[in-house]
């Protein structure tokens, strides 16, 4: 019964045992170093320490997307137009009913291309086709000040900084200066919903409002 004990937050071993808290740091060593040193030895050491677990082991597809941000920008503009054209269809069937299949496709396509995290409020067009939700700090207005000299992430040393890549990607894009806009904080209540459908519904509403104004 007692073989599975919760692990304490200090990573020094299971809670409730003897001598679990790492000794206090002395001169020349920080407490953080002490904590790391006293952590139990194990053969299994996952490289990704951030709670934003990576969805893929390598970043090659993500980086390809950023290199081809201009192409993807062009493609997405056409794609969004088609989705908007289909608005009567979505409305006919009901946005609620098409959500499941559209979300399935969106999640897997964007998951493959950008390591999408389904925040439901896609800003790829403003971030050089580099998904900001892959940043361990989930910065929407990055980069942070911790970028390593080689351009890699402070939290995950072998991952290129999402925002360094975003800046590179945005330089290839026609509307790349959208990276200069200050993005609103993430609305957590929209997680795991379809950004495609949301954008389409909003664009359709805007189009109707414009039509009404013209009439």
């Amino acid at each position, binding site marked *: 019964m007692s073989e599975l004990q919760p*692990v*304490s*937050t*200090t*990573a020094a071993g299971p809670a409730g045992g003897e001598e679990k808290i790492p000794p206090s740091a002395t001169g020349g060593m*920080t*407490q*953080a*170093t*002490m*904590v*790391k040193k006293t952590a139990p030895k194990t053969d299994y050491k996952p490289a990704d*320490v*951030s*709670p934003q677990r990576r969805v893929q082991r390598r970043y090659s597809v993500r980086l390809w997307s950023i290199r081809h941000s201009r192409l993807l920008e062009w493609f997405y503009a056409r794609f969004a137009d088609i989705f908007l054209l289909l608005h009567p269809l979505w409305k006919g069937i009901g946005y609620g009913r098409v959500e499941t299949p559209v979300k399935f496709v969106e999640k897997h396509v964007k998951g493959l291309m950008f390591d999408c995290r389904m925040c439901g409020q896609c800003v790829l067009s403003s971030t050089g086709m580099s998904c900001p939700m892959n940043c*361990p*700090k*989930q*910065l*929407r*207005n*990055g*980069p*942070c*000040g*911790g*970028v*390593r*000299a*080689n*351009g890699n992430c*402070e*939290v995950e040393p072998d991952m290129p*900084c999402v*925002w*360094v890549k975003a*800046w*590179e990607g945005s330089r290839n894009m026609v509307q790349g200066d959208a990276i*200069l806009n*200050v*993005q*609103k*904080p*993430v609305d*957590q209540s929209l997680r795991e919903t379809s950004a495609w459908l949301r954008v389409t519904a909003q664009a359709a509403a805007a189009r109707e409002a414009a039509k009404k104004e013209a009439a």
Partner: protein
Amino acid sequence: MNMVTPRPPHPDENPAGIDLPLDPLPGHSSRGRLERVLRRGEFAVTTELNPPDSANPQDVYERAAIFDGWVDGINAVDASGANCHMSSVGICALLTRMGYAPIMQIACRDKNRIAIQGDVLGAAAMGVANILCLTGDGVQAGDQPGAKPVFDLDSMSLLETVRIMRDNGKFLSGRKLTTPPQVFLGAAVNPFAPPYDFRPIHLGKKIAAGAQFVQTQYCFDVPMFRTFMERARDLGFTEKVFILCGVGPLASAKTAKWIRSNVPGVHIPDEIIKRLEGAQDQKKEGKQICIDIINEVKEIPGVSGIHVMAYRQEEYVAEMVHESGVLKGRKPWKREGRADDQIVADRLEHLLHDEPTQQPVQLVEKAAR
């Protein structure tokens, strides 16, 4: 009768009496001294208080006292490096109580937007006039790597949130505030990390989000900082924001190497380490390097001040500020009055003299009479 020489008037005190809080000035968004000093065009000096791992207020008072008369603002850090210490709100409560001018740091790592907006109101009510909006280091850097990183807002949206609270008198939700917080808004920039060409533009984004002053990361590479400042000047940002250059002494070559490889975002060139290694007294040399850097950056157009981060070497801050002569003979005001100081004084008066007893039994007797 002995003559009392009148104290020369200080620009940062209320002419009606030094015990009174400062009056608001036109065009100022806070009543704080830091904003006054910067807007007057004087070279400002801010520093950082090493937060104690203790529940004793005396620790904070002692650590603040060594900056007396040398700095215009004291940063109350919010678990810097993701290491747990006394909270910035707590330090600010103690510092404002003593009449210091703290700069409250808010890191997005530990609190969501609900907690942060509440803290902003609480801090402003205590008399905090300056807020520095940070993203915060990742939890992996600190002593509790298993903690849940929040990062609900980022530094940019945090700036915007506080600006909306101040200027529009509203929470993010749109709910009205009866008294908006009057604060001078700050942000941090790091010109020494990639992508270098984006950094000045990123500063512009922070200005657009609401930054009125910025403090930079440790500057050990002056040419790199100069390039950054040139770009910022070309883009017209130095007119819109006060830039305080971050400086600090390195205790030894060993510490410098440790910082370089362990503290995210700090860039220390090899020449600095070589210079430290070649010195007889490395600690003294570290201090001298810092003074040299201060003397170089103060001449760069657009630099409005310095932010001295002397972690565990706080006693040198006064010395370095003095030796570099950045204050040009100016004496930063030490303590200031708070709006509610009179209430506190009255209460003490009341406790000491008016009501000698508060024993429940006697209170009941008194009420029965």
